[in-house]
């Protein structure tokens, strides 16, 4: 997997501190409409969120039920709008139910990685000295490890489950966020309001979480979007490699794994989940492109 656009993210200047946070937040959400990539991205994401939320209503069949009669002609038909897979399971139903695990695991892992990364990055950037050295080196070691191989080793050893996937994604992505936050902290710790807080006698933890972190949120937000997209790719890849969410419940990557061998006969079985996962990642990445544009315009 490629690393994220760290250098680019860093170039977004943190927005000025504001007291009217709620109004700012609303204005920020409304401004998404100003950027076409962001608008398209949000619409795609909302579409899949709706599909995931309404899966029980949308899915015409139970996701694991086989329609043996459809096996003779698994291609799209009136009974099965998107066709069925090699076991006669309705693709539309599996697609809708399969949106759920992805849309839960990917953001959960991003939140975990962001929380852990922020703590590590703040500690390293604010305290400097040996804490900085140890944390930076530890992050470098994790980052130097080719992640896919790390996932393979860990997930085949401990077994694969939703929680294990969230865990490895959190641990492997936190160092990247820590690096970004550390860079921002090094810059922000020299500001006057940090000096003022120190004069007031605030604790280091207070200064890190209340004075510094909120001002690093702009670049972090862009990064969280990118990271969600990457996580969706990784969840798909893990499913495709056979080390992702355990069958038989539908998982987009796993659906491709089961059926890409039959491409020459029934290409739709693999194409449908591939299109779904691609569109969802495109949604998140377009949103990130749009947010970065809006951030640079400030």
């Amino acid at each position: 997997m490629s690393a994220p656009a760290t250098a680019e993210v860093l170039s977004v200047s943190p927005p000025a501190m504001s007291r009217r946070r709620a109004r700012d937040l609303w204005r920020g959400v409304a401004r998404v409409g100003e950027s076409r990539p962001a608008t398209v991205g949000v619409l795609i994401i909302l579409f899949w969120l709706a599909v995931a939320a309404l899966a029980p209503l949308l899915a015409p069949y139970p996701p694991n039920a086989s329609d043996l009669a459809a096996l003779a002609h698994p291609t799209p038909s009136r009974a099965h709008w998107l066709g069925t897979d090699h076991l006669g399971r309705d693709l539309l139903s599996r697609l809708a139910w399969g949106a759920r695990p992805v849309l839960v695991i990917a953001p959960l892992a991003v939140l975990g990685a962001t929380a852990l990364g922020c703590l590590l990055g703040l500690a390293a950037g604010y305290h400097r000295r040996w804490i900085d050295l140890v944390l930076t080196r530890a992050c470098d070691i994790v980052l130097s490890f080719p992640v896919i191989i790390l996932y393979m080793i860990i997930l085949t050893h401990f077994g694969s489950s939703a929680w294990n996937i969230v865990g490895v994604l959190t641990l492997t992505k936190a160092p990247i966020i820590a690096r970004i936050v550390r860079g921002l902290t090094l810059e922000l710790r020299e500001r006057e309001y940090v000096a003022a807080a120190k004069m007031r006698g605030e604790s280091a933890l207070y200064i890190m979480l209340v004075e510094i972190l909120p001002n690093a949120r702009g670049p972090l937000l862009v990064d969280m979007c990118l990271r969600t997209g990457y996580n969706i790719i990784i969840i798909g890849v893990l499913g495709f490699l056979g080390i992702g969410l355990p069958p038989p419940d539908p998982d987009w990557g796993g659906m491709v794994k089961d059926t890409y061998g039959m491409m020459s006969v029934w290409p739709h079985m693999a194409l449908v989940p591939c299109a779904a996962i691609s569109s969802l990642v495109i949604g998140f990445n377009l949103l990130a492109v749009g947010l970065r544009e809006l951030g640079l315009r400030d």
Partner: protein
Amino acid sequence: MARFVAKHLVFLLLTLFVVSFLVFALNEFSPGAVARKELGAYATQEQVDLLTRQLGLDRPLPVRYAEYLGKAATGDLGYSARFKLPVKDVIWKHLGNTALLAALAFACIVPLSMLLGIAAGMRESSRLDRAILLFSTVVASIPEFALGVFLASIFVVWLGWLPGTATLVAGGGWSVATQLVLPVAVIVLFDSGYVISMIRASMIEVMQRPYIRTAVLKGMPFRDVILRHAVRNAMITPITVIMLQINYLVAGVVVVETVFAYPGFGRMMLEAALFKDIALVEAGALVAVFVAVATNILGDLAYMILDPRIRA
């Protein structure tokens, strides 16, 4: 320069040390694991214990790890249970295959992403820029297996121009060269999307510098401004990113190798991990980390050579 290299070599050794210990501990922490794997699920506990003692696996973990390191230093990495060959031979063979794939892909990625990245970044927000930005965002968003499925359904199933597998054994009327086209294409598309966006960002930044404005104002043709002044400066930052792609190309192409049944390093690691081929997993992880850290160092060196300001 010498100090820089020495410092990084120490870090390389430290990383290899930490990673090898972690992987070793993860796989061999419980003493019976290796013997159990060797004997299979139907062996009795007594048999497992006996073999564990015979192999000396009941000794403390640090002792066994030291012995493992000593053997590895002399080139003995153990025996692969999955491939029934010495680990060293298995790794060399697969690493060679992946190197071929990676070299071909790298040779396409660099010129393609330089061309598109520079073309997009020289006039920010122009129509060309928007088109290239959209292209790079979209191709970087499609997972490799999905790209593989899309391309295969067009060129294999629909048009019938190319073979759907790349086993590196000529057969079914397809030469090895035609087998390589699709795997390379998937890697190039997926990876260049990211590199393009990095070069574009760097180019945009350079185009706002005063020396570019000076060059334009003194009446220099736009082509010369780009080629003589902008490109060289714009390539400094992305060179590390480009070098980091080698890391991805060696260890990260497991998906592409799986899609096209390519006998490469990544797929070998997947098979080893799924089969719990402990010796191969441990050695393979070391190789992967070595490649990763070494390319990192090369990237930093290239950076220093290109930018004299940080050479001090």
